[in-house]
């Protein structure tokens, strides 16, 4: 499946958002997620099916003013 992860194209074999996070090194990390611009809570990641062409954002705490 081809996806956009944080703006970069990737090709992975996963079915859910939770699977994608594990596959891409985010296991156990403090992150927030969105799919196609819509926030997906942590509790909904395992049930969030991904489709070819989806755009996924994975955000973490960062410096800010």
């Amino acid at each position, binding site marked *: 499946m081809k996806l956009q992860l*944080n*703006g970069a194209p990737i090709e992975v074999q996963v079915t859910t958002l939770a699977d994608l996070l594990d596959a*891409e*090194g*985010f296991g156990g*990390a*403090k*992150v*927030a*997620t*969105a799919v196609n*611009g*819509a*926030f997906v*809570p*942590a509790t909904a990641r395992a049930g969030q099916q991904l489709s070819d062409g989806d755009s996924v*954002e*994975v*955000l*973490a*705490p*960062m*410096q*800010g*003013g």
Partner: protein
Amino acid sequence: MRDFYGTELSNGLMLGTAQYPSPAVLADAFKRSGASVATVSLRRESGQDRAGQDFWQLIRDLGVHVLPNTAGCHSVKEAVSTAHMAREVFATKWIKLEVIGEEDTLQPDVFGLVEAARILTEDGFQVFPYTTEDLVVADKLLQAGCEVLMPWGAPIGSGLGLNNIFGLRAMRAHFPDVPLVIDAGLGLPSQAAAAMELGFDAILLNTAVAKAGDPALMAQAFATAISAGQMAHAADPMEPRDMAAPSTPVIGKAFLE
């Protein structure tokens, strides 16, 4: 000091966490100043570097209140989604709501700001809106459910100070019971003291500290100035007058001509 959504702060300094030379300097700035709130953001994380995880541990170790922002958001949808993501990650209802309307000044889009504030307060957020000193906009934000207002002093990162003293003084007078925070644009501690003397409740700044030659010392200087300004306001300053008035008693002066 007025409370912020029921939270009393130990001092009136809210300090940003961006642009410091190193994490150690950032931590020292908080330690030296006693800043009570740290502003933070959300940005894309790398599964390899996981840089955000170390940063989050650093912030947690500061032991201060965390105020996530929606910096860089230009639309209501973007700001609302970012706020939801921040609430989950930082486990706080607080959100520093920024909806940017113009790139040169980073002036807030006050129309989008009011709409986003209404959506977020209805969803249980405690919104700290980055706004202008416009009284009508301020009133709309209060009607939308905001219990704190954060007018700019000057454009973000400019260091120009309090660009519109008249407008800020009018805002303080018009909303005597609303916690007001000067957010952005300050460059020097004297400007922070001036804002507190006007009766503002706190100062939010970042660049003036982070870009100083000695950020920790500058953070301490701001904290001291904020405290001085706050005391001066509480002490009820004298009214200025145009003509001189001798302070030394005239009666009893020797005749020596």
